[in-house]
C-alpha cells in the first residue's frame, strides 16, 4: 500500500513561505509528477513528504497515518536523489544493501534481495565496482536499485534524470516508467521538464510559487488548463496568448491557442496575418515564429515540412474549438 494524502501542508523558512497550503490525494500505485519552474517549491514538497524537512503546518498521511512527526527512515519511503548520492566508499552491492543492513535483515536475505534488484536493473556485472567506476546511467540505476530493494510504500524521485545526457534521459525515462508499472509501487517524481512530466505521469501536479495550480492527468492539463500559468507551462512550444480587441470579441481578457492548433496558410485570407521571422525545419515538424504586428510574436507548428522562410507572408487560422479563454485574474473560462 502506498496512499499519500497531503492536508493543508505548509512550509516556511523564516518569513519566506515556500509551500502555501497544499492539498493532494495520491492513489496507491499511481505515478504522480510534480512539475513547475525552479523555485516553485516542488522539491521542498517532496522533501516534506520524505521527512527531510519538517512541515510548518498541515498533515501528511501515508496509508491514513499522519507521519509529520515520524523520522524519514520510519515512513517507509525511499528516495532517488538528483546527484545520485551514492556512498562513494561502498561497492554497488554495499550501496544497494545499505538500507537492508540498517534494517537488521539477515545476510542471506540481503544477498538474495540485492541480487534480485541488480538483475532487474542489469547491474549484476557491476556489483563489486565502486560508484566512481560507473557511468552516469549506471550510477543512476544503482540509486534506483537502492530505492527498490527496500520495497518501500512509495518512491520519491528528485529530478533523477537531469544529470544525464539527452539520449540516456529518454532511455532511463522509459525504464523508470516500466519499472514503476511492473512493481506497482506509488511514485512521486519531481521534474522541471514538462516533457518528462507529460510522458511519465498518471497524474501531474503543476506547482507555481508554492501553490498547486492544477492536479490532473497529462491530457486534462493539456486540454483544460485551469489558468494562464498551467496553459503556458504545459505544452511545447508554449501556447500563444493574445490580448486586446480579439480577446474581447471572444468574451475574454486573454485567449490562448497552442502552436499546433494554428493552421498555416501562405498569403491566405482571414485569420491572423504576419511575417515569418524564424522558421525551424525539423523534417518531422516545421516551427514558425511569426511576427503578427499588434498581436505580437506567434508560434505555429506544422506537422511535416513546410517550405517557408523568413520574410514570407503567412496567415494563421486558429482552430475555433481549441481556443482557450481566460478572465481578468487569469482563470480559465469554460463554456
Amino acid at each position, binding site marked *: 500500500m502506498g496512499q499519500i494524502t497531503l492536508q493543508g501542508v505548509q512550509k516556511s523558512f523564516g518569513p519566506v513561505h515556500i509551500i502555501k497550503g497544499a492539498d493532494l490525494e495520491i492513489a496507491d500505485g499511481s505515478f504522480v509528477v510534480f512539475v513547475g519552474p525552479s523555485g516553485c517549491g516542488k522539491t521542498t514538497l517532496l522533501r516534506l513528504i520524505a521527512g*527531510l524537512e519538517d512541515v510548518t503546518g498541515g498533515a501528511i498521511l501515508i496509508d491514513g497515518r499522519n507521519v509529520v512527526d515520524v*523520522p524519514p*527512515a520510519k515512513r517507509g519511503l525511499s528516495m532517488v536523489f538528483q*546527484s545520485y*548520492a551514492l556512498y*562513494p*566508499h561502498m561497492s554497488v552491492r554495499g550501496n544497494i544493501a*545499505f538500507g537492508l543492513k*540498517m534494517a537488521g535483515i539477515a545476510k542471506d536475505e540481503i544477498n538474495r534481495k540485492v541480487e534480485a534488484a541488480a538483475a532487474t536493473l542489469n547491474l549484476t556485472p557491476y556489483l563489486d565496482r565502486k560508484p566512481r567506476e560507473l557511468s552516469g546511467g549506471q550510477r543512476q540505476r544503482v540509486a534506483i536499485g537502492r530505492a527498490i530493494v527496500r520495497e518501500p510504500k512509495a518512491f520519491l524521485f528528485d529530478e533523477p534524470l537531469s544529470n544525464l545526457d539527452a539520449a540516456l534521459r529518454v532511455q532511463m525515462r522509459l525504464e523508470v516508467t516500466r519499472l514503476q508499472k511492473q512493481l506497482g509501487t506509488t511514485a512521486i517524481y519531481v521534474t522541471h521538464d514538462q516533457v518528462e512530466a507529460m510522458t511519465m505521469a498518471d497524474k501531474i501536479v503543476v506547482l507555481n510559487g508554492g501553490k498547486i495550480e492544477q492536479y490532473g492527468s497529462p491530457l486534462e492539463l493539456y486540454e483544460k488548463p485551469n489558468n494562464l500559468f498551467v496553459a503556458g507551462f504545459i505544452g511545447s512550444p508554449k501556447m500563444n496568448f493574445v490580448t486586446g480587441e480579439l480577446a474581447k470579441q471572444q468574451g475574454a481578457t486573454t485567449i490562448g491557442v497552442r502552436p499546433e492548433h494554428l493552421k498555416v496558410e501562405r498569403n491566405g485570407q482571414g485569420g491572423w496575418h504576419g511575417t515569418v521571422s524564424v522558421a525551424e525545419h525539423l523534417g518531422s515538424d516545421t516551427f514558425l515564429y511569426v511576427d503578427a504586428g499588434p498581436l505580437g510574436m506567434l508560434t505555429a507548428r506544422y506537422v511535416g515540412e513546410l517550405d517557408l522562410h523568413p520574410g514570407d507572408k503567412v496567415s494563421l487560422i486558429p482552430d475555433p474549438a481549441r481556443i482557450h479563454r481566460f478572465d481578468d485574474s487569469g482563470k480559465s473560462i469554460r463554456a
Partner: protein
Amino acid sequence: MARMVTTRNKVISTAAAWLVGFLIFFPILWMVLASFKTELEAFAIPPSFLFFHWTTENYVTVQERSDYFHHALNSIIIAGGSTLIAMLIAIPAAWSMAFSPTKRTKDVLLWMLSTKMMPPVGVLVPIYLIYRTFGLLDTRSGLIFILCLGNLPIVIWMLFTYFKEIPKDILEAARMDGATIGRELIYVLTPMAVPGLASTLLLNLILAWNEAFWTLNLSTLEAAPLTVFIASYSSPEGLFWAKLSAASTLAIAPILVLGWFSQRQLVRGLTFGAVK
C-alpha cells in the same frame, strides 16, 4: 611538426621542473652534506661539494653533548599530543559548523582565523607571566597546550572545508535508508572524511613539530623539543656549522620520513575538492 614541438616542450618543462625541485631541495641537501664535514670544511671557500673528508664525528659529538633522544621524545610527545587534542576539539566543532550552520558560523570561522593574524611575539610577555605563575614553564603540558591553541584555528578551518565537501545528499540518503545518527557517523561520514582527517592530522603534526617560537621561549631543557636542540648549536660557543647541520638533520629526519611516506595523502588532502 606539431609533435616535435610538444616533445621539445616536454623536455624543457621536465628539465625546468627538476631544476626548480633541486633548488628547493638544495638547502636540505647542503645541510645533510655539511653534517658529514669537519667544522673547517663546513665553511671553507670555495665549498667542496662531494669530495671532502666524510666523517660522522659531528653526530657523535652532538649526541654526546646534548641528548638527541630526550629532545626527540619531547618533540614526539608535544607534536603528537597537541595534534591529538586539537583534532579532538576540532572534529566536533567543524562538524557542527559544516552540517548545521547558523547565521553566525561564517563570523565564528573568521574570528578564529583572525587570531592567527596577531604576531605571537605580541603576547609573549603575558603568556610567559601566566606560564610562570602556573608553573607551566619548561613543561611538556605547557607546550602541548600552547601549540594546540596555536594550531586549532587552522585545524578547524581545514576540517570544516573537508566536511563541507561531503555532499549533504549522501547524508540524507543514509537517513532515508534508515541509518541512525550514530550509524550515519560510522558507516557513511567517517569513511568519507578519512582523507581530510588524515591530511589535517599530518599537516598539524608537521606544523607542531617545526614550531620554534613558543618552544624556544617557553622551554629550556626538561621539556625542550628538537627545535631547542637545534638552536642550542647556533648560540653559546659561536657557530658550529657542521654540528648545527648534524643536529638539524637529526631533528628533521623523522618528519621528513613521515612526510615522504605520506606525501600522496598530503597532496590529495590539500587539493581535495579542487580536482574532481
